[in-house]
């Protein structure tokens, strides 16, 4: 079983008639994702990739059960779209938008927490279980990156995902489930909140975490490892080790202030909890091998 999304998950697509929405809906279906229908206000009656389009999520779920919503709407409409999905009782939501206002993202996460729902994103490509299903925008046809296997991948960065996952594949492994939690300062779901899913997934033997400077998400993972919430091998790669302090390099979520969120601090926390940290992407594969051989 993959995590978050399986080939049985019934996926509704909000913003299905847009350029990206329709293009990636086609690819999601092509990979094996069970897309049941879509929503775009004012476009009810149309079909995209053979899926019916409705004016609202409420109208869509009156005819189709949906377990999950894939949201392809611009950042300024994202909060409303997420609230609309939550209103219809959908508990798994992926939103890719890059540029969601900070205070709205706080509201989105607060609403998800109070509904017991999981919102992944924004500023992400989404999540994929190779050869099974995906919610988001992944070129799963690039074999060098998206080969099926037993390594879970969690990432804050889209561009590094390809770089690091290619090294996992080069070392002879493949990916069970990859989840991009996104590069914003307030992601809808945090690394540590994904750990129980990977822990319970029989297909995942080890976990690769692609992090970066700033924030406290890697430290939270270390804490969960110490508490025994996650007990599988962890290999992390963290970008920004040599980044100058105070400069805003990379994602907005990655600013180093007041000694918190430094890469050194994250490395120490992960190592003290039994994780290993690769200093460059090419080391990730080697370290995985070592850890799995010694298990």
């Amino acid at each position, binding site marked *: 079983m993959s995590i978050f999304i399986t080939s049985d998950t019934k996926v509704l697509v909000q913003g299905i008639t847009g350029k990206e929405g329709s293009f990636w809906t086609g690819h999601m279906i092509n990979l094996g994702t069970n897309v049941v229908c879509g929503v775009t206000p004012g476009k009810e009656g149309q079909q995209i990739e053979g899926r019916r389009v409705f004016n609202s999520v409420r109208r869509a779920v009156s005819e189709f059960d949906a377990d999950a919503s894939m949201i392809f709407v611009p950042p300024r409409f994202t909060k409303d779209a997420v609230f609309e999905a939550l209103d219809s009782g959908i508990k798994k939501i992926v939103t890719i938008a890059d540029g969601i206002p900070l205070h709205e993202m706080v509201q989105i996460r607060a609403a998800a927490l109070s509904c017991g729902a999981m919102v992944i994103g924004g500023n992400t490509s989404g999540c994929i279980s190779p050869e099974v299903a995906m919610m988001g925008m992944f070129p799963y046809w690039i074999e060098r990156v998206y080969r099926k296997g037993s390594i879970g991948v969690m990432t804050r960065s889209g561009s590094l995902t390809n770089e690091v996952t*290619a090294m996992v594949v080069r070392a002879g492994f493949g990916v069970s489930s990859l989840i991009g939690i996104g590069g914003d300062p307030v992601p809808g779901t945090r690394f540590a909140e994904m750990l129980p899913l990977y822990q319970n997934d029989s297909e995942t033997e080890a976990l690769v975490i692609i992090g970066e400077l700033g924030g406290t998400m890697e430290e939270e993972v270390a804490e969960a490892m110490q508490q025994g919430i996650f007990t599988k091998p962890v290999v992390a790669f963290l970008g920004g080790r040599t980044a100058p302090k105070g400069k805003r390099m990379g994602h907005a979520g990655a600013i180093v202030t007041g000694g918190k969120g430094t890469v050194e601090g994250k490395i120490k926390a992960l190592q003290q909890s039994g994780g290993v940290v690769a200093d*460059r992407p090419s080391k990730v594969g080697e370290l995985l091998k070592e850890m799995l051989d010694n298990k």
Partner: protein
Amino acid sequence: MKLFEYQAKDIFRGAGIPVPRSEMARSVEDTVNAAEKTGFPCVLKSQVLQGGRGKAGLIQIVKNPEEVEKAASNLFARDVKLLLVEEAVSIKKELYLSVTVDPVRAKALIIASAEGGVEIEELAVNAPEKIFREEVDITAGLQSFQATDLAYRLSCDPIEAKQLIGILRRLYSVFAKYDAELVEINPLFITREGQLIAGDGKLIIDENSMNRQEGFERTREYYDSDMEFEAAKEGIPYLQFDGDISLMCAGAGLTTTVYDLINYEGGSVANYLEFGGPNYRKAVRAMELCLQNDSKVILVVTFGTIARADVMAEGIVDAIERLKPDRPIVVCIRGTNEEEAVKTLRNAGLEPLFDTEEAVRKAVQLCK
């Protein structure tokens, strides 16, 4: 977007938060006139965005016109463009107040301490019990009881506490209205006369909210260099360094990693530049920026998915044809439609690499 102190204080004043009387000055003469208006002693505060202004000598207390002239000449000579000339208030005590976002709890977070001043970060480490935190539901906003409770934790004097309640509510309203990532008063003075007044003001507006905030134009003053300003106008993330290798990479995480790898290999970076994501058609403009540096090599590293490799390769070849760069270019372009990209690059006489670390090593070698 980080605002200057004077802008933050204008906003505070407009919201009803007391700030010292002040004048703006752009020259030594201006400063002398401004100081006459505020009276002596007064404080000359350099309007620059960097932190630690006090320690850097960018804030000066002056007692008479001679001192004003001397201090102002000195500050303007240090590339300061603007001074805020403020009345010096008599200080009994310094407090700390800020509102920010707690990404874990998904709340707004008020942080306050009765022991303010510049050492607040050390206080957070050494005496965390002296720092009070109040979580605010960002949809409901700050409730009166929260402001009241927090105010009385900070001061048991009812006259001070009453002023604090007002300031807390107004500061929170600034946070909400301006989509703030951070709004901070450090220090918040209590004067010998018992008045509360904002000694400093910091306001950082969330970048993702800038399109719904009006009246903030990004001018040259907000950037450390001309190049950073030019890049910002194009929407290209750019940082200026003084090393040998110009980065032209795609994606924040990958670009940051390439930066790290160059340092590991003993090389140095001339500039950080991302032309991936929505910028992947801006290769010409990006290369132009790189060529304005004294770099020895341009290093292009991408692993594009949505931003296609073939489009990136075409962009690079187009940029080379138009700009005829005077320095070697190392290219490592991978991802969607990579085969097309390789053909395009080879046809243009470039030798594409496929491994980031190999490309970094080659670029570092070329600098030697």
